[in-house]
């Protein structure tokens, strides 16, 4: 089912000695493995976002954002870069694509979309969907999603995905034609039902537990990070008051005046510097959020495995029942109380012909059941194999991405420290001249 990634295709992007601006630009690159088939042929960008107004399905005026997807053939050596093919997509179309992938590839951890509404925001950050900063961060997130899919060994070969990138108009119909929604509905119904698997796969149980833990720890982290950002913002901004008071104080001083006045400017600079610092930190939060949403994708694979496992167990149980019935019929003993046993006791023995035909029917049904169990067994095994391939791939990607994210976070912190040292050293110089 799944083509496994050969090891040389996984590019390890080294991150030694990068400045903070570089690291910012590298965030996207480091998240995606290059070199899979589609990305070797195509360059994919979500180049810009645009606000539009139109009528929705219930004929109401609405404002929404569309994103410009650019694809161009990957640069060949020496050639001039070709003009990109472009098309516009709404967030809801991304959602449709993802739902399609989710249903079609139940054994794959489908990359998550960026959040629909801003979550875990600290108070200065806008939670408005049309806020330019939010739209920009979502643009980056959507591009990241496309690159993740395009670099995935299985998903990158999907036809519907390719059409998403190339057919602005016809794509929607093509998705709906696949009939994935019917599949989705029946599966979702069974998903929502409480089912009990008798022999759960320990690996999946562990994975489910891990993704639960990861989900809770990342959401906790994001919540506290937002609070930390809030407080840090406060600390910086209160320093801005020094700027004003030093400047006012300088007016009544002779020798100290100049020093105070210029130190006040540095305090203003200090207070203003926090805006950029925290804006930059949002990238880190976005990286964490991606993995927060990934945990849902992981859980979804686990649930689907449970479903398949459950179906297998049901088939096996059904078969066992039929076998038992056959035995009862053949030996005439009733081991377990049943309505059939009761009726036969009450209404006397069947004729040998009746018994014979019933045995034959049961035999037929048992054979079918054995076939089903075999089928389900294969399906389950295939699912586990494919899913586990993808899970391994995911784990590797996660460890690498998060490590990179932590490095770039540390680089951001260092840059914040450097800015702080710079400003306070300047202020110190002014003070020492007083």
């Amino acid at each position, binding site marked *: 089912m799944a083509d496994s990634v050969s090891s040389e295709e996984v590019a390890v992007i080294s991150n030694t000695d990068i400045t903070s601006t570089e690291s910012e630009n590298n965030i996207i690159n480091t998240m995606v493995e290059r070199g899979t088939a589609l990305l070797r042929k195509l360059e994919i960008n979500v180049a810009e976002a645009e606000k539009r107004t139109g009528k929705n399905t219930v004929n109401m005026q609405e404002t929404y954002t569309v994103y410009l997807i650019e694809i161009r053939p990957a640069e060949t050596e020496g050639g001039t870069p070709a003009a990109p093919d472009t098309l516009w997509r709404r967030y809801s179309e991304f959602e449709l694509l993802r739902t399609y992938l989710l249903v079609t590839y139940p054994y794959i951890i489908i990359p998550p979309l960026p959040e629909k509404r801003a979550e875990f925001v600290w108070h200065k950050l806008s939670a408005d969907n049309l806020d330019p900063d939010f739209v920009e961060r979502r643009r980056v997130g959507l591009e990241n999603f496309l690159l993740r899919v395009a670099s995935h060994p299985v998903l990158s070969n999907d036809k519907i995905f390719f059409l998403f990138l190339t057919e602005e108009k016809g794509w929607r119909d093509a998705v709906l034609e696949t009939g994935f929604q019917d599949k989705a509905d029946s599966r979702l119904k069974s998903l929502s039902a409480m089912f009990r698997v008798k022999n759960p796969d320990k690996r999946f149980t562990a994975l489910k537990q891990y993704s639960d833990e990861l989900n809770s720890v990342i959401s906790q982290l994001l919540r506290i990070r937002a609070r930390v950002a809030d407080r840090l913002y406060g600390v910086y901004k209160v320093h801005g008051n020094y700027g004003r008071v030093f400047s006012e104080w300088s007016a009544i001083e002779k020798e100290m005046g100049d020093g105070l006045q210029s130190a006040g400017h540095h305090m203003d600079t200090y207070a203003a510097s926090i805006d950029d610092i925290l804006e930059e930190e949002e990238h880190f939060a976005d990286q964490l959020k991606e993995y927060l949403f990934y945990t849902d994708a992981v859980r979804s694979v686990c649930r689907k495995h449970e479903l398949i496992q459950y179906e297998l167990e049901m088939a096996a149980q059904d078969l066992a029942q039929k076998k038992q019935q056959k035995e009862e019929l053949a030996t005439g003993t009733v081991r377990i109380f049943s309505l059939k046993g009761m009726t036969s006791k009450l209404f006397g023995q069947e004729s040998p012909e009746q018994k014979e035909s019933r045995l034959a029917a049961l035999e037929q049904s048992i054979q079918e059941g054995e076939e089903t169990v075999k089928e389900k067994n294969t399906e389950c095994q295939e699912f586990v194999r494919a899913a586990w391939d993808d899970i391994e791939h995911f784990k590797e990607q996660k460890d690498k991405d998060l490590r990179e994210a932590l490095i770039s976070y540390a680089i951001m912190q260092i840059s914040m420290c450097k800015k702080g*040292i710079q400003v306070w050293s300047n202020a110190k110089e002014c*003070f020492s001249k007083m």
Partner: protein
Amino acid sequence: LPAFHAMSISAPRGLASSGQKPITEILHPLSAAEEPLSPGPDEVGLTNGTPVETPSPASASVLFNRLQLDDDLDSDARDPYADTETHDLFVTVDDPKKHVSTMETYITYRVSTKTTRIEFDLPEYSVRRRYQDFDWLRTKLEDSQPTHLIPPLPEKFVMKGVVDRFSEEFVETRMKALDKFLKRVADHPVLSFNPHLNAFLSAKDLNKRQGLALLSKVGESVKNVAGGYKLRVRPPEFCAMGEYLDTFNQKLGTIDRIAQRILKEQSEYLTELREYGTVYASWAGSEEELQRPLEGVAGCVTTCCGALEDMSENMGQEFLPVLREYILYIESMKNVLRKRDQSQAEYEGRLEAAVLRKQEDRTPVTEVEKCQDKMECFNADLKADWERWQSNKRQDFKQLLTGMADKNVTHYEKCQAAWESLITLLQDKQTEDKTSETN
């Protein structure tokens, strides 16, 4: 002659503006308005130390100081008080101790003195004093040296229940403030020769009864003079001083509020930051490959917490007390300015009366002249102390603000070092991975 009168006159600025009379002849103009302060036997309940009743009016040391100062004044006109004064009296306040008796609980501090001054019998003293004693000294200085700016003591009253008077932090802060107070007095060219200071530094037991009686007397005399008189013209330099103090007071109050607010924000930030670090640590528990990196981040955040804590602690213990001291200093300064106005008022009042009387009969104008001398002396002392205070203030704030900037730099440096070592850790691991991959 009472010793401190002569000493007051020997204040360099005072002398410069009060005319060319020889030191020994001059009588402090304020002496007329006050009781002679020569310490009586009941005041000196001293069991050891220098007897205070025998100071020599124009001690060699004072003269020496004065000349020394005059010489050096010319050589360093820009900052006359920075390092030109001869320091021959060194005082330290330290080693707080708690005393518990049935009557009360209080703290005493060790007051150590080292000196070469001949007014002291011994070159070194060590006595224990409590806050009350400092308060007594300050009152004495204010009464006996009304023309001078007396450094402030830390606030006497603390809100019960809000501040624990016996907490280590409170005692430490107060001790530092008392030390500052005493050092400022000991460095002052006039105040440092006050016999009450001498007694305070050297007497084993202080008898403070006399001081209290005196306080009420001075209070009355001040009231008599004040009498709702409006000054004709206040010299512009004193108007400027008053205006300066008002603005400075306002700005210091703002800075104090900002600093406290920063402390509050920092402490709230610290609380969140600690929790933030804890979450990384707990995340590390559920990871394999990422365990070390996440532990690294947790460690880093902890280091940053420590650095921030150090900085905040320093702000609370070093920065805020200096602001408080200067806010109190402003009060002392305003007080002296008020007294100066009173002395001018007294002179103007007498002058007016003399002019009226002049038409009827010729009374001697000596009373008026006395008042004028007194006022001029006051002006001179005040101007000298003002210059001195301005210079101290400049030094203190330069040091304070440079220190604040420095502490911030240090804080960021510590954090930066932590994050840099984290990157090394993370990238080391990466290269390890890469080498293991190629193998």
